[in-house]
């Protein structure tokens, strides 16, 4: 149990996928302008990432193995794209409400490199099935946390008196950099 907790802490704070591993920057910059959209994107990513971690573990363990390790990237991309499509269809049918919230973000997730990065890291670190799931869920939780925090800051920045040259993306980049520095403060807490 303790190791799973450590994985969660590690992925959310210490090895945060966005701030420390610098993956998934596109949605991080793109969808963080409003708090609600950031929440939606975070939830959708969490959902897909957890599923993708599990599925890619199964593929890697039982289908590819060490002989076909060079196929991991290729097959993971295919599987993730498939899962995202499937998720979209199922959500659309079963829960129109949830589809309203997550719908437009689901196709975006296919191209989110964090979603590919975490299964690849799983394969690299030789995580077990449950470990993979926790790693995926934790990574996604970290992604959501950072996205929501960043969106909240950007909403405040809207009203702030930013010098004209720094307005828009420039101040967002600076904010992201400062936030990344803050997350560096967690390093060494867990491996």
């Amino acid at each position, binding site marked *: 149990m303790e190791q799973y907790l450590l994985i969660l802490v590690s992925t959310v704070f210490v090895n945060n996928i966005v701030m420390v591993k610098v993956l998934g920057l596109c949605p991080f910059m793109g969808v963080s302008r409003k708090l609600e959209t950031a929440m939606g994107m975070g939830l959708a990513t969490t959902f897909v990432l957890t599923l993708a971690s599990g599925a890619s573990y199964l593929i890697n363990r039982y289908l590819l193995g060490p002989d*076909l390790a060079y196929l991991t990237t290729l097959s993971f991309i*295919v599987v993730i794209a*498939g899962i995202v499509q*499937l998720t979209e*269809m*199922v959500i659309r*049918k*079963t829960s129109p409400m949830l589809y309203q919230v997550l719908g437009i973000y689901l196709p975006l997730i296919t191209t989110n490199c964090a979603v590919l990065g975490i299964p690849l890291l799983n394969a690299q670190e030789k995580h077990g099935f449950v470990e993979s799931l926790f790693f995926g869920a934790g990574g996604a939780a970290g992604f959501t946390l950072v996205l929501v925090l960043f969106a909240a800051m950007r909403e405040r920045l809207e009203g702030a008196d930013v010098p004209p040259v720094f307005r828009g993306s420039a101040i967002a980049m600076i904010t992201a950099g400062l936030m990344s520095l803050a997350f560096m403060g967690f390093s060494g807490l867990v491996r």
Partner: protein
Amino acid sequence: MITAVLVVAGIAVVLGALLGYAAIRFRVEGNPVVQEIDKILPQTQCGQCGFAGCHPYAEAIAEGSADINRCPPGGERNIRRLADLLGVEFKPLSDEVAEPKPKSLAVIDESLCIGCTLCIQACPVDAIVGASKQMHTVIASECTGCELCLPPCPVDCIAMVPIEEDLGNWRWKYPANPLKAA
């Protein structure tokens, strides 16, 4: 080598079958009216209607929250077809989405001007010079093309002349109709 091909092909086949099955099993019956409207729209996805694309616009029409006359590429023909489909009155293309007028300049036909000074009083930027019973003229560099001087002129001697675009006055265009928040 063969195993690699087989494995990748196998993944693709399984996923394809799964998605194909899901497409049938989880098919969502969309609003058929939306599909019909979407078929009529020109699918240019230009966003000139103020929606993010043709399908969102079709949804808005079906919902009744948007008028049928907001699609410039479709033109009158499409508005007529939409009016037929939905059983509503034909409307000319909405002004809100019509092409913005080209930037132009007021020019006074000096042979017709009677020197009434009415246009001088109307001009908000003092771009017209002249005096009572004297010929008036427009200072080209000051004129904003606001057209406020046109209605007061009793002899209709003021014309709006479009300015040709050249390297000196070309600018990036603003989007004609800002997108509505999704």
